[in-house]
């Protein structure tokens, strides 16, 4: 009998590793009876791991995740998505109004407003790093929901934002916003999302974690090779889009969904390798901002024993 586990996911291509591994039966092969649980946002997913409702999840490192790690509830065990030169990554957007007024490059961000969901979110981190790198100061507007941020950006009520390409590109296409830069120019090798699990699993169920990561990594490999290395050519991409369409933009017809899925392509970490430098940078940024306790160390946040670290 296979071991039952629950994996939390958002309906984003960044979670493709789980989807592909599941569809291709890698989890079953690894002796895992996997159930996918979908979330509207990353934050509840972290809490769900803490509550024991979900065994594994993939999400950005946020203040909430670090807090939960500090409370001994969750542990980062691998990398999922990272920025890589040469591959389309997260975009910096400017509203049309701000763009017309001269915000055509991140260097013009001084005194502008920058959208984020909440304080301590990855948007906060990115905006802050960009501003620091350009030596400008921006005001952050917490708007909770991605929808609200988009609305505010479109109507020119905030000036800038950064977001994954599959959301950024259609927005820019409509002319209401403009892409003014790439996040990867400011945060090299940014470990955008990570794989994490509960402290209990990480400490006491090493075998389980290993078999999960093993199966997950196979999915990642398939995805990368089809979408980024284009090993299967056009057909390989189409087959992969077909597969992912079950999970991403499932409520739209395939023709409409496909560009979104393709636009969202980013490289997932092979073997769930984790960029420790980036994680450490993020942790110290959160601490410097006073969003999380200054006593938290990398040991508390990360268990690096399962994957290759960079």
């Amino acid at each position: 009998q296979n071991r039952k586990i629950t994996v939390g996911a958002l309906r984003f291509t960044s979670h493709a590793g789980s989807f592909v591994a599941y569809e291709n039966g890698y989890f079953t092969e690894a002796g895992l009876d996997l159930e996918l649980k979908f979330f509207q946002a990353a934050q509840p997913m972290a809490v769900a791991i803490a509550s024991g409702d979900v065994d594994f999840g993939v999400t950005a490192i946020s203040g909430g995740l670090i807090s939960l790690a500090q409370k001994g509830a969750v542990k980062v065990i691998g990398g999922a998505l990272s920025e890589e030169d040469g591959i389309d990554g997260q975009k910096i957007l400017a509203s049309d109004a701000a763009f017309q007024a001269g915000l055509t490059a991140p260097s013009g961000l001084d005194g502008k407003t920058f959208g984020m969901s909440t304080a301590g979110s990855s948007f906060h981190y990115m905006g802050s790093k960009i501003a620091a790198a350009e030596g400008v100061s921006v005001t952050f507007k917490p708007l909770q929901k991605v929808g609200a941020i988009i609305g505010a950006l479109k109507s020119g009520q905030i000036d800038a934002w950064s977001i994954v390409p599959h959301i950024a590109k259609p927005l820019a296409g409509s002319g209401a916003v403009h892409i003014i830069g790439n996040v990867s120019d400011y945060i090299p090798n940014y470990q955008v999302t990570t794989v994490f699990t509960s402290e209990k699993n990480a400490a006491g169920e090493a075998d389980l974690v290993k078999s999960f990561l093993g199966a997950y990594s196979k999915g990642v490999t398939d995805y990368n090779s089809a979408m980024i290395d284009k090993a299967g050519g056009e057909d390989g991409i189409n087959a992969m889009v077909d597969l992912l369409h079950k999970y991403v933009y499932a409520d739209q017809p395939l023709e409409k969904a496909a560009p979104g899925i393709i636009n969202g392509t980013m490289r997932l970490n092979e073997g769930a390798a984790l960029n420790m430098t980036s994680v450490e940078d993020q942790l110290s940024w959160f601490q410097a901002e006073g969003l999380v306790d200054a006593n938290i160390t990398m040991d508390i946040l990360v268990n690096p024993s399962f994957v290759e670290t960079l």
Partner: protein
Amino acid sequence: MPETHAQPVPFRGGGFRPVAIRGAGLAVFASLLILTEWGTRSGWISALTLPRPSDVVKTFGELWSTGMLFKHLVPSLTRLVVGASIGVTLGVSTGILIGLFSYVRSGLVPLVAALFPIPKIALLPLFVIWFGIDEGSKYALIAFGTFTPTVVATYGAVDNVDRTLIRMGQSFGMGWFAIVRKIVLPGAMPGILSGLRISLAIGIILLVAAEMLGAEYGIGAYILEAGALYDLERLFAGVVILSALGILVSTVIGAIEKRLLNWRT
């Protein structure tokens, strides 16, 4: 001779008693819809501001024809029914105890007053820890949201039960339980039912908050997703469903009142 000055007594009564005018409500809805439709078509209402009503109807039609409507409605209704049942049952029981016992009253009324203004969405992260991300936390959130108003309505209703009726029961030698069952409960029923109107409206409102927590299907989840994608047609379609649900619930309670409380003058 006085006949020369005869004049009818002037009329000075009437008014202050609004009567129902058939179709006025419908007319208001219709004209609002037509106005928006025309405004969005002619362009002076931008597509960002309001969706075109006909597009909302179309979206609704798609929801219906793809069967997604029920896929979303059924879990939401289940959550509403289960959560509200728990909240209302506990609320009515607590309210009756508060209405009857000095210690319960003095101990719990301030607690309920303190719980009332707590926004349920603020507690979402805790609910996940307490009740999990599955149906449990959704039931709990709706139960919690319906509990406090039900308690307040119920003990108010028990307070309003005519004390002469209770003294009458005692004067006929009725026992404590018989008095509660035959006098207090039926006497409090009108107040409890009208409290239920409010509680259930709050329950419907909380569906959206509840379905923020890992719900795939459900009207609330549908609305949240539409909001996240800034898809106004779907957002409004969802809101219309909730609104219709609210009117439905209120109609059902009205019907129950008519049946159960036909003794009211």
